[in-house]
């Protein structure tokens, strides 16, 4: 459904904030595919991704008065998605995907896929990156996801999270440093397995 010129995102947002459910529905129709794609990337499970999107939509509706327009609406929605995901994930699942991948790397199970098939190499890289992201502390993970996956600027991230821009910079720096270290560790494990 393509919105008419009168139904720009800003108009729809203003109406939704005033309690117009139909306007909110139109907004979400536009953003649902992108939101679902992101949810699917980090859940890896279609049903869980759908649940996550549904909970995000409901949380967005109830929190809509708090949206002050200082960042894009999608960035704000993405923060809600990340926090719903974190809640669903639970603290104990944090390091599990990376630990599994480390074991696979040590057992050389990741290597053949990357060598034989370029598409498999892409998939392996994605799997590794997302597992490494899961292993980051939540506050570091969310700035990386907002910056690189939601395409938000540092200023937008600062506004969406309600933190100073300098904090965003330092969290990004620390997160990227941690990711590089994890990658080096994975490479060492692979090399040791040869």
């Amino acid at each position, binding site marked *: 459904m393509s919105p008419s010129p009168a139904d720009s995102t800003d108009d729809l947002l203003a109406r939704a*904030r*005033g*309690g117009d*459910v139909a306007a*909110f*529905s139109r907004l*979400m*129709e536009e953003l*649902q*595919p*992108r939101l*679902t*794609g*992101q949810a*699917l*990337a980090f859940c890896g499970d279609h049903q869980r991704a*759908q649940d996550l*999107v*549904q909970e995000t*939509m*409901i949380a967005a*509706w*109830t*929190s*809509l*008065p*708090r949206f002050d327009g200082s960042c894009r609406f999608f960035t704000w929605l993405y923060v809600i998605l990340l926090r719903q995901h974190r809640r669903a994930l639970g603290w104990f699942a944090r390091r599990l995907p990376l630990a599994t991948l480390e074991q696979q790397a040590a057992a050389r199970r990741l290597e053949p896929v990357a060598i034989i098939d370029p598409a498999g190499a*892409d998939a392996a*890289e*994605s799997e590794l*990156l*997302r597992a490494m992201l899961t292993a980051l502390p939540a506050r570091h993970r969310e700035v*990386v996801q907002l*910056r*690189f*996956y939601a*395409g938000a600027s*540092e200023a937008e991230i600062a506004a969406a999270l309600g933190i100073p821009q300098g904090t965003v*910079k*330092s969290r*990004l*720096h620390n997160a*990227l440093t941690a*990711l*590089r270290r994890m*990658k080096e560790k994975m490479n060492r494990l692979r090399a040791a397995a040869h």
Partner: protein
Amino acid sequence: MPAPDSNDHDPMQEALRRDAARISEPPFDPALHYAAMRRIRALADGGSKPSRFRPMPIFATAIAASIVAVFLATQPPHPSPKNAPREATHTAPPASLLAYQQAAAQGDDALFAQLDRDAQTLLPPSAPVFNTSLR
């Protein structure tokens, strides 16, 4: 501190951008949308529009807390392990200073035997034996 934005050729940042670009958007899912909107309409019908302040949960919690407080306040105190020894001290026979003086006069063995007997029941801190020194 290096700014992540300033280094576009960092392999890690490039890998993250590549991964983000690989995420595909599934087609619009009407069932998901309508399921979510049904719940949102139910919320909206209940509260007319999204609200920052929702007093109902606060009132409900306050009422529940009041009921619990009134219930606890009106309950008679029932014996607990903490109270039991204190009651025992009230029922214990008061120690006699004279008995200790007599036992002390008979010798150490008699005094210790008296102490052992009284140790069977816990004496209250107000017992005379604790207030007057033995001669």
